[in-house]
């Protein structure tokens, strides 16, 4: 069985790594190459680059940094943000990305998932889902990169995850919005429900703040755990996290 994947997520804007409070502007924190090299050296199993400058304005991602990253590293990485068409995905993959991750564009036009899976294979196609707990259950949110545009997508998370997998998504990144950035832990129950309901790998996202949170996500059936703040702020060194997970009986790559 594969090792539990630790996946740092880097926000990118204008070809730079940025950090900031969601919805409230971002600060440049350095070059993509230096951050990438740091995480590879730390033992990250995979990286996600989220081009936050791309999606809300309807632009696609800039390709030059993707090729620089692809040249630099020898672990897999995916690119999210601003991929709305088959040709944009083709360009991102041709630049050297291993996977493309689509979110709002898949909600606008679910056939996009099939088109990408047909041409590039399911293993290249990740569907990101922003899920919010409502009194009646978990619902999908759309355009979450912008406070003004963010809205309910009119779908239940579980149904959308199942539809995305049926249409050919090879992986689901389940981002639980209520937990995002607050570091109180992944929404373990929701992650378990989704992981048990789809045949494809599910990556937990949103809420990681302590090594125990990663342990709980993997125990709930997540194939990988994505986090940003705890890694960027150097709150949890990845080697120590993996050592902890191994001590809990979770298989890791070291």
């Amino acid at each position, binding site marked *: *069985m*594969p*090792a539990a*994947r630790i996946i740092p997520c880097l926000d990118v804007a204008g070809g730079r790594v940025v950090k900031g409070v969601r919805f409230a502007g971002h600060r440049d924190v350095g070059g993509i190459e230096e951050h990438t090299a740091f995480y*590879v050296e730390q033992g990250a*199993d995979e990286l996600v680059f989220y081009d936050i400058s791309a999606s809300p304005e309807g632009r696609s991602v800039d390709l030059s940094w993707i*090729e620089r990253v*692809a*040249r630099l590293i*020898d*672990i*897999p990485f995916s690119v999210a943000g601003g991929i709305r068409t088959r040709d944009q995905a083709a360009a991102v*993959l*041709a*630049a*050297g990305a*291993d*996977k493309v991750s689509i979110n709002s564009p898949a909600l606008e036009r679910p056939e996009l998932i099939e088109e990408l899976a*047909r*041409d*590039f*294979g*399911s*293993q*290249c196609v990740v569907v990101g889902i922003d899920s919010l707990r409502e009194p009646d259950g978990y619902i999908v949110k759309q355009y979450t990169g912008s406070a003004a545009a963010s809205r309910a997508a009119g779908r239940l998370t579980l149904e959308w995850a199942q539809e995305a997998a049926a249409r050919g998504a*090879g*992986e689901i990144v389940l981002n639980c919005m209520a937990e995002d950035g607050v570091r109180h832990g992944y929404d373990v129950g929701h992650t378990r429900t989704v*992981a*048990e309901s*789809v*045949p*494809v*790998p*599910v990556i937990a996202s949103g809420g990681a703040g302590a090594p125990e949170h990663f342990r709980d996500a993997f125990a709930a*059936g997540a*194939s*990988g755990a994505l986090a940003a703040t705890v890694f960027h702020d150097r709150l949890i060194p990845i080697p120590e996290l993996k050592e902890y997970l191994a001590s809990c009986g979770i*298989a890791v*790559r070291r």
Partner: protein
Amino acid sequence: MRLAVVDLGFGNLGSVAMAFERLGVVPEVTGEPERLAGADKVVLPGVGHAGYAMRQIKARGMAPLLRELKQPLLGICLGMQLLFERTEEEDVDCLGLLPGAVRRLEAAAGRPVPHMGWSPLEVADESIGLASGDHVYFAHSFACDDGTATVARADYGRPVPAVVRSGNLTGAQFHPERSSAPGRRFLQAWLAA
């Protein structure tokens, strides 16, 4: 050494070529049969659908060339699957250079498909640059039959051949270009062999 990467107009050509460049060998990425025939070693990469890939190979008149190559040929991921007789993916005939078929992995509780991530290997012959316990990166929904050509395997509900070798042919189901140090060692060993 002249290293050629087969260009079928699809697949992870960039990242495979870059992996060799990191090892100091700049490959020629080409779809021209005569350039491939003249190379010292040839890499057949491929991410995508088997049916599409085989149609590209046939449309470009490359099937006879790939079948007749005498120099070392390395198939990566889908490129390895194409070396076998047949695949369940779109149910198409492949190159038929290795016996056996490529079959769909079945998802089960706690074992999602695609098989995605870093799986440990059991290695029968360390001359391929890999050792038992090495983790390498997989991303696939189909896997070839286990057979006498298998020299390294992973376990995913059934034995998953990770490296096959027969004559001039080597196949890697995993992605050496995205498998960190073990991937580098594997490519280095193949270049040096």
